[in-house]
């Protein structure tokens, strides 16, 4: 992937050559069929090398060195911030805060903005498809401020029922928090619509883009959101780093969450004043090498083209949906393909998801089983766990076929006929 021009389609064979993980077979000789991308994605050589280069060639702490040698690290780090800014179409690089991940980003909003502006009897609007990372922080905020949690009802196929938005979005709503894509049923939510409605009700919108950031183009300005969070490790980047985007106005008005070095303007004996954005929210030594390598991940997916990645995954989803239907007793949860991305959660009649996941693992297929950090959603679905196959840019239709064969094998092994 040396070219920087966007391509129309994904050449899977070529892409896979960029990912060292696929160059070796598993210990049992099978090829790795990695279908746990919603959890975390594999890393291309370009990302790995970027992090290695940082440590081998120009590593120092950020923002501190007057020495010549320290200039490179700041240039790289701020260069990476600018890449993130362009990647999500933010107005300015100062609106990009490096965090440890989506979870940290959402907590930062819940503490920094929520604790300051949410008052007793205010309302926070969430819904039951959210990952616990975009649910529990709001429960805690509600508990501590005396605010009330409201829920946008879900349709029978696990989409937001926006026809009922008027009933739950009120004058008292301060925060609307929603995911742009469900990590379980794959539902793609109409973030622009919700953000516009929230704005006219006087509420801010917080978007969990952990899944969508790797799967389609993100534009924080055209969608009109106030905050947006995602994780580096799910977009083929390093672990330990994530992003919080905040509109300048919001970031200016909120309080810092972590305090300490790097985020202050002036410290007196008994009080302090805060640094300008983005430093105000980046206390302590940042995730330097990871944030720099995140820039390489963004370069990588951008050079492949987010539209090409999306098209490729839609194709995979189509093939997966059709092929999985051949497996007896298999039930896919979620909306039809036109409303979702390439994340497929399912159950197989008569088989526990745990047994299914263990047995397909024998064929080299890595899928996740469990509640996928969405217990309320599973309560709605009426099952305590599901099997989840989630696709990435390096997956092929052949991977889907291996999964389907492995599922037939698992059913047989579990004596299902």
């Amino acid at each position, binding site marked *: 992937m040396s070219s920087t021009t966007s391509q129309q389609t994904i050449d899977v064979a070529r892409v896979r050559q960029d990912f060292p993980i696929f160059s070796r077979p598993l210990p049992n000789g099978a090829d790795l069929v990695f279908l746990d991308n919603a959890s975390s994605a594999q890393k291309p050589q370009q990302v790995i090398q970027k992090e290695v280069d940082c440590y081998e060639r120009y590593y120092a702490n950020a923002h501190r060195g007057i020495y010549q040698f320290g200039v490179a690290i700041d240039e790289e780090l701020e260069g990476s911030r600018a890449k993130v800014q362009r990647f999500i179409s933010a107005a300015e690089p100062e609106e990009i805060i490096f965090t440890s991940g989506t979870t940290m980003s959402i907590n930062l909003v819940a503490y920094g903005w929520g604790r300051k502006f949410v008052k007793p009897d205010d309302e926070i609007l969430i819904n039951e498809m959210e990952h616990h990372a975009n649910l529990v922080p709001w429960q805690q905020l509600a508990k501590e401020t005396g605010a009330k949690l409201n829920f946008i009802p879900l349709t029978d196929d696990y989409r937001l029922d926006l026809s009922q938005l008027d009933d739950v979005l009120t004058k008292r709503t301060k925060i609307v928090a929603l995911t742009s894509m469900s990590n379980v049923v794959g539902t793609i939510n109409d973030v622009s619509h919700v953000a516009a409605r929230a704005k006219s009700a006087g509420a801010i919108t917080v978007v969990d883009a952990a899944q969508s950031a790797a799967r389609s183009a993100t534009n924080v300005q055209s969608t009109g959101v106030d905050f947006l969070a995602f994780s580096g490790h799910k977009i083929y980047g390093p672990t330990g780093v994530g992003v919080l985007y905040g509109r300048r106005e919001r970031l200016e008005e909120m309080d810092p969450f972590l305090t300490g070095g790097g985020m202050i303007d002036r410290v007196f004996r008994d009080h302090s004043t805060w640094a300008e954005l983005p430093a105000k929210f980046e206390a302590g030594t940042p995730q330097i090498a990871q944030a720099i390598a995140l820039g390489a991940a963004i370069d990588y997916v951008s050079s492949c083209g987010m539209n090409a990645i999306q098209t490729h995954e839609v194709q995979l989803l189509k093939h997966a949906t059709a092929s999985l239907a051949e497996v007896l007793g298999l039930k896919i949860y979620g909306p039809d393909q036109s409303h979702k991305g390439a994340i497929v959660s399912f159950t197989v009649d008569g088989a*526990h998801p*745990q047994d299914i996941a*263990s047995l397909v693992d024998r064929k080299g297929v890595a899928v996740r*089983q*469990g509640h996928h950090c969405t217990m309320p959603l599973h309560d709605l679905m009426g099952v*305590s766990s599901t099997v989840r196959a989630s696709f990435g840019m390096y997956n092929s239709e052949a991977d889907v076929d291996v999964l389907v064969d492995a599922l037939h094998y698992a059913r047989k*092994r579990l*004596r299902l006929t």
Partner: protein
Amino acid sequence: MFPLQSMTIDELIEQFESLEDWEEQCDYLIDIGFDLPKLPDEHKIEPNKVHGCQSNVWLVANTSDGDSPVVEIQAESDAMIVNGLIAVLLAAYSGRTPQEILDTDIKAIFARLGLDRHLSPARRNGLFGMVKKIRSIAEQAA
């Protein structure tokens, strides 16, 4: 394969050691899981659930009357590999006196079966959740 109820833990370990690799051993767990006596539905209630398991596991125990009472354990999961693990636990514990249960070095048994290496941390947690429940039943009966 002999009927499970009559299999001792030593016989089970021997059977396990004769198998080629973990895949075969796992198949064996599935098979003894299928042979595990079903727990009557009336026992599949919240108070009998074992905590720490990713699947549902229900476990009940009865202590017999008499001079040297033994603990009879029945358990079932909705996951088949877990049923195999339950079968292992029953071979180790069921029909023993409370003191025998408390004296059993279950970690050594798991190690001989290779379960310490082959089970994921989540599964190991679930397994030790069952061990904990059985031991607390034995403590009450001792």
